[in-house]
């Protein structure tokens, strides 16, 4: 019976945000890459899928605005989550995603373990790479959003900043987008799918829950803390139904395919990427 015990890791809201950003990120990646590589046959083909260059641009712009709205909603959501009576305690609590000194220690321990010089770190609820995932999106989104908005309304924007800074914004937008794509399609995908115990897919972002058995190995400090507080029973939840699992496996692998395809395109067409 114990193998089947599952504990809650992501609330419905967390999972919805993740689903939303998966879909919108892919749309932006495809339309953006199509426009970036518009001088090539591949770019013309992809942009053609959306109708025309203008429609691809319109989709890119609209989805960008949607993402910014979702980001604002996320901020409000997070602000409500913080317990403002004791902010200092809660913000640096192991349940919070705010980086702590402990994360640096964990990274050091991890490298030590890589070199075979010591035991692996005892992770709590959020590991340092998971926090990096979160904060990378957290600063990438506003950067892409602001530079994108400026490029969407270049004439209006040049009233508040010199016109030549649009050149800089364009460069920032492209470089940051490239970094985001490379990071997601290489690092995020391989950590989520290729690790032992995770292969073929880390399901927790869809199922919302994880097997206690696995977490005892992955995040021992978290489980120990739950047991100490006597909250382990509280967070136990039933597993996802089979139909739902089938759905998210199909969806997850579809996203994975598109991402890896885009990665191949980036590598293939690297010489055609115009930075200006």
């Amino acid at each position: 019976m114990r193998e089947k015990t599952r504990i809650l890791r992501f609330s419905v809201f967390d999972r919805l945000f993740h689903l939303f950003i998966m879909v919108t990120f892919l749309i932006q990646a495809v339309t953006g890459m199509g426009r970036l590589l518009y001088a090539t046959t591949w770019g013309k083909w992809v942009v053609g899928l959306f109708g025309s260059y203008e429609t691809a641009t319109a989709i890119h712009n609209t989805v960008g605005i949607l993402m910014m709205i979702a980001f604002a909603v996320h901020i409000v959501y997070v602000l409500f989550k913080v317990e403002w009576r004791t902010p200092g305690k809660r913000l640096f609590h192991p349940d919070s995603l705010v980086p702590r000194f402990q994360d640096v220690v964990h990274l050091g321990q991890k490298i030590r373990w890589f070199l075979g010089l010591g035991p692996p770190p005892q992770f709590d609820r959020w590991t340092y790479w998971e926090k990096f995932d979160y904060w990378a999106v957290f600063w990438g989104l506003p950067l892409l959003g602001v530079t994108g908005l400026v490029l969407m309304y270049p004439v209006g924007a040049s009233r508040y900043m010199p016109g030549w800074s649009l050149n800089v914004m364009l460069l920032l937008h492209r470089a940051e987008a490239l970094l985001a794509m490379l990071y997601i399609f290489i690092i995020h995908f391989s950590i989520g799918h290729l690790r032992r115990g995770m292969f073929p897919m880390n399901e927790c972002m869809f199922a919302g829950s994880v097997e206690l058995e696995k977490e005892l190995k992955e995040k021992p400090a978290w489980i120990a803390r739950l047991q100490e507080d006597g909250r382990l029973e509280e967070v136990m939840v039933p597993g996802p139904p089979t139909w739902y699992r089938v759905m998210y496996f199909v969806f997850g692998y579809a996203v994975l395919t598109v991402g890896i395809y885009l990665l191949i395109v980036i590598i293939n067409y690297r010489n055609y990427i115009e930075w200006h």
Partner: protein
Amino acid sequence: MSAKGRVIFSLALLCLSLLVAVPAPAQEEVTSSIRRYREREASTGYYEEYEVKPRRVRPFVGVPGVGRKPFPYSPGAAEIRTRTYLADSHRGLEFYAMRRCEDCHVAEAKHSHTVRGNVTCRQCHGGEPIASINHYFSPLNPIRRHAYVCAKCHEGANASFATFMVHEPPAAAAATRKTFPSLYYTNWFMYLLIVGVMGFFILHSLVWISKEFYHQVMEKKRKPEDERKDQNSAL
């Protein structure tokens, strides 16, 4: 008139003529905003307010060639172009008529207006003769570029907007450090960021995944009672 008188008279004339020759400030002003661009205004219906300079100077919004600016920006500081003040930039060039713009201006043909926006060179640079950028009456002269060129498509384009570098210099090139420093340093910053983040995490995941895989293989080989000894590498 005596010889002396003639000398005095001609000297006086000379002095007078010197005085006369001093141009009055009003003569230096080549434009009365209403006259000079009348036809343009009649056809477009706006722009008279941006005749020579932008009316209000905003902090941090500098216009090259017009005012001083806090952030340096000088297209052409690194190279001296000899043809940039001509009325016909291609005067005396052999075989000009037979060739297309991009045959000679390879780098200038690679920018988003032409590649993606489907804008032709002549929509900005005009018909023959193509004026050099800095020729006084050139439509692309920074003092009127926004009104004469950009505003044809970007409604309401102002002088600040026109400082956008349509033909952006290659961001990583050494010359760009002088001509467009903010672009140059942004490029390096992002480059180091990408290489740093990707380099670290690719190495990190490679070692991690292969080490886990290795432990899995070893565990399968091992007898169950040995497992407890090696708790260190359990993960």
